[in-house]
Structures are given as structure tokens and as C-alpha cells.
């Protein structure tokens, strides 16, 4: 068990003490229940996506991904993420700077309002832009006069994507920057750095892992959003279809292998996201918990 000790130091703490050790039978039962549930609800759907995608062979798989409508859906998904993520990145850094570095009235309210898009149904996230920019909406007639289309067009998709991914980066950065305080920035300023230099050379290196964490989660949601985008898209093939919407169309046309082929790309993106996320967590655990390690090695 020496190998297991170094691999899983945290649980070792509980497994070696009689007061916190569960009976062998209880342990076996909980492991069976937990892992059985995990396999049934999380692993099986993942396996099914890839198995169904490759059911008719690699050629069908490749054809489904390189067909013009699929390619235009991939392009639109990349475009929407390429606009939404940087905008929310700038917002996230700005909001975290204002909230973490200063005291002001209404701070708790502002933090709650930033989290608001997480508690709004994606369908409503789409609906609100229809109410603002749609043909019967506030600016509908005005936009029509200038022949600008937002709803059932690309700008609507981008707006809906920005809304649903709005809080991701801010909510990663706010607690991180609050915990770090502002002593280092103050020191830099005292030593003559400009505000921008202070941010670039002092703050950014301190928050880079948290920032990357937020960006990767924001990107996964931006590329995978379905409900909100579905409301504003209008489902015009080759024009306003993102990858998740393309999956839906293929599925409803009973082109299951093709639907799962496109879905498998999104599943790969999800796995990549989780891998990067785990790497960042491992990286920051290495840096921030030096105090825990010596105590662990004692037991």
C-alpha cells in the first residue's frame, strides 16, 4: 500500500484511523453504488456517442464531418466562441478588478447580478434578445429600416452565446483576486510602475491559471450552447446553424450516424476541457498547499 499512500494522500488520512475507517462491507457497498451510478450516468453516454458515431465506419464518419453544412456549422461555432470568449474575458478581468480591489456600496448586489445568467433558463436567454431585436421587438422596426438583421442571423447567435457564458471568467477571478489582496500591486505602484504595467507584470502572472480555467469553461459552454442559440437562430442550414443545432437537425432527419459524428467532436472538446481543467487544478494545488504535505507524510 506504500504506492497508494503517495498517490492518494488525502484519503489515506481517513483509511488508516480506526475512528474514520468504514466497515469493509459498507465500503464495498458505497464503492459499488457510487461507481455503478457513475458508470451508468456519466461513462455510458460518453461511450455511446463515440460508438454510434463510428457504427457505420470511418468513411461515413469523415463524410459527415466534411460535408459543407457541417463545415459551415463548425465555422459558425468557432466564430461565435471567438467573439464571445474575448469579450467576456475583458469583462471578467474588469469586473474582478473593480470588485476585488476596492470597497464600495452595492458590491454584493453587483456580484449577484453578474451570476444572474446562470440562473436563467437558456430558452429565456434567447427569448430576451428576440424581444429586444426581433421583428416585433423594441428595435425591430428601426433595424429593419437599416436592413440589419440580428435575430435569425449570426449577430443574434453571438449575443445569446455572450449571455449564457457571461459569468464564467468573472466568477473564477473574483474570489481569486480577493484572496490575493492588493499589497503586491501597491508595492509596484510605489516603486514607480504605471497602472497598466502593474496589471500586466504583477496582477496577470498571479491570476493566469484562474484566468485560463475561466476561459476554458467559458469556451466549452460557448461552443456547446443549444437552448439559447436555438431560439435566435432560425435554423437556416449552412447559414445560422451552429454545431449543436446541426446535431439536432441531423438527428431529427434520422441521420443518426452523422448526428453522432458531429456530436463526437463536441464530446472531444468536452474531454479536452476536462483534461485542461484537471491539469490547472493539479498545477495550482502544487503551488498553494505546501503546508498540507508535511502533515500528510507523517501519517
Amino acid at each position, binding site marked *: 500500500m506504500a504506492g497508494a499512500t503517495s498517490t*492518494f494522500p488525502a*484519503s489515506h488520512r481517513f*483509511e488508516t484511523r480506526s*475512528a*474514520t475507517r*468504514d466497515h469493509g462491507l459498507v*465500503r464495498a457497498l458505497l*464503492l459499488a453504488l457510487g*461507481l455503478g*451510478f457513475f458508470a451508468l*450516468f*456519466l461513462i*455510458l*453516454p*460518453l461511450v*455511446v*456517442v463515440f460508438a*454510434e458515431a463510428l457504427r457505420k465506419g470511418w468513411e461515413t464518419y469523415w463524410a459527415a464531418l466534411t460535408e459543407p453544412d457541417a463545415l459551415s456549422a463548425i465555422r459558425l461555432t468557432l466564430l461565435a466562441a471567438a467573439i464571445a470568449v474575448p469579450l467576456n474575458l475583458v469583462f471578467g478581468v474588469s*469586473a474582478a478588478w473593480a470588485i476585488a*480591489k*476596492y470597497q464600495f456600496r452595492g458590491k454584493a448586489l*453587483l456580484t*449577484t447580478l453578474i451570476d*444572474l*445568467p446562470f*440562473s*436563467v*433558463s*437558456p*430558452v*429565456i436567454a434567447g*427569448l*430576451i434578445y*428576440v424581444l429586444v431585436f426581433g421583428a416585433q*421587438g*423594441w428595435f425591430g422596426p428601426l433595424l429593419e429600416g437599416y436592413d440589419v438583421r440580428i435575430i435569425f442571423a449570426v449577430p443574434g447567435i453571438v449575443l445569446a452565446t455572450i*449571455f449564457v457564458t*457571461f459569468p464564467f471568467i468573472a466568477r473564477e477571478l473574483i474570489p481569486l483576486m480577493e484572496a490575493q489582496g*492588493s499589497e503586491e500591486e501597491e508595492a509596484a*505602484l510605489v516603486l514607480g510602475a504605471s497602472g497598466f504595467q502593474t*496589471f500586466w507584470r504583477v496582477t496577470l502572472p498571479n491570476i493566469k491559471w484562474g484566468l485560463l480555467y475561466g476561459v476554458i*469553461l467559458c469556451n466549452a459552454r460557448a461552443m*456547446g*450552447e*443549444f*437552448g439559447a442559440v*436555438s431560439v435566435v437562430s432560425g435554423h437556416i442550414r449552412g447559414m445560422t446553424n451552429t*454545431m*449543436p*443545432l446541426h*446535431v439536432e437537425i441531423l438527428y431529427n432527419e434520422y441521420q443518426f450516424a452523422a*448526428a*453522432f459524428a458531429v*456530436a463526437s467532436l*463536441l464530446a472531444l*472538446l*468536452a*474531454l479536452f476541457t*476536462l483534461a485542461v481543467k*484537471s491539469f490547472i487544478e493539479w498545477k495550482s494545488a502544487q503551488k498553494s498547499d505546501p503546508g498540507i504535505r508535511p502533515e500528510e507524510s507523517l501519517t
Partner: protein
Amino acid sequence: MTATASRRVLPGFGLTLGFTILYLSLVVLIPLSAVFLKTATLSPEQIWNQISAPRAVASYRLTFGASLLAAMVNAVFGLILAWILVRYSFPGKKLVDALIDLPFALPTAVAGIALAAIYAKNGWIGQFLEPLGIRIAFTPAGILVALIFIGLPFVVRTVQPVLQDLDAEFEEAAASLGATRWQSVTRVVLPAILPALTTGFALAFARAVGEYGSVIFIAGNMPLVSEITPLIIITKLEQYDYAGATAIAAVMLLISFALLLVINLLQAWSARRGRREA
């Protein structure tokens, strides 16, 4: 003191706060207010007719009932998963830990078609349930399965850190005072993680109520039977019934805001409990 000092020293307060509020207003607050302003243009009678239509009421019962049941299942299995991840060592634990977040990262439409392929009557599991007379896909049970999938990480990820921070000494003290293992788990461990467990339950519930993508592929979407509230909004929009869609959206938004308030209170309770124990 430090507050005023840092306001004077660090630049950018006006710029960053101004931009934050501007962007928040343009992207979130003003568009969201459209729902309530649009609803306000309807007469009370129109609003009532929309939100109390039998199809709408059936959808509320289904959406909230299935969400509540899914959150309860997730509370039980999420707690078990958090427990085995913190307390036991087993092969592949790191992989299990990383994949718990899959429902956060996997697009909902992908989850929806995968679950439909599993539970349809000729599907991976559905084909074995069909002879037994059990149907999951295209019934309310399918909605439950989808909502369990998307809500699972919320419970695990709120309970896990609290369980991790709980010192083994508490249980040792209980044991040395003569408590059985069962007593020390139910009287010492469970009260300590209860605020986190309740928060996780509420988060999973709130997410399930608004869920759309993973549900519609497996629900069957039959009016009065397996039609969720977000789908009613979409259907009304597709029929250009903007007033009807907006009135129902306003009801859902108000419920979401109420849930958000409850979750904030729960998190405050969690934080207080955490400080007292530390």
C-alpha cells in the same frame, strides 16, 4: 482604513466599475427587463389566461416534479460519490474525479441524443427494459434521467471540499466518547456537511428547472404528458405568440430569482458553519 488607502493608490476604479456596469446592463439587465416590460403590456386577465392554461400548468407540474426528484437522486448519489472520492482510495480515482464534471463540459444536445440512444426501446439499455414493460425514453422517466445527468456535478462539487476539510479528529473524539461508527457519521459528519449538501441540492434543482437541450431529445414532448415549460415557451415563439411566451417566461424568471435568493442564503449558512468549525 485599508479600503480608502487602496482606493487612493490603485488606479482604474472608475474605469473598471464603469465598464462592468455598462456591459452588465447592455448584455444582461436591459434585455432581461424586456420580459417584464413586455408582460406589463398585457392585461392581468391575458396574463392569467396564459399562465393558467391546462398545458402550461401540466408543464409546471412536470418540470418542477421531475427537477425535485432528480435533485433528490443527485443528493443521495452525489453524497456517496463525494464520500468515496474523499474517504477511500481505489484504482482510477483521479479519472473518476475529473470526469464528474462531464455534464458541465458536454453540450446538452450531445447528452440528449446519447441518453435517447441508450434508453429508446431498441437502445443500449432500453432493449432489455422493453420486454419487462419499462419505458424510459419518450416518457416523463426519460426527463428524469436527463435531469439527473445534468445535475450530478453540483452536489458532488459542493459536498466534496467540505468533506475534505472535515478533520478526522471530530470522529475520533466521538469514537473515544463511546459513539458507534453510525452515530458518529449521522451526528457528527452529516450535520457538518448538511449546509453544503442542501446548497448542492438547490443548485441541481435550479439548473434542472431551466434545462432544455438534454431533455427535449428524450422527453417525447407530448402536450400535457411530457412537455416541459421551456419547450412551451419555444412552441409559443414558433407560433409568433410573443405575449404568451413572455408571460410564461416571466413566471419562470420569478421562480429562478426566488431560487437564486434561497441559494444565496444557503451559501451564507454554509460559510457561517464553515467558519465556526475552523
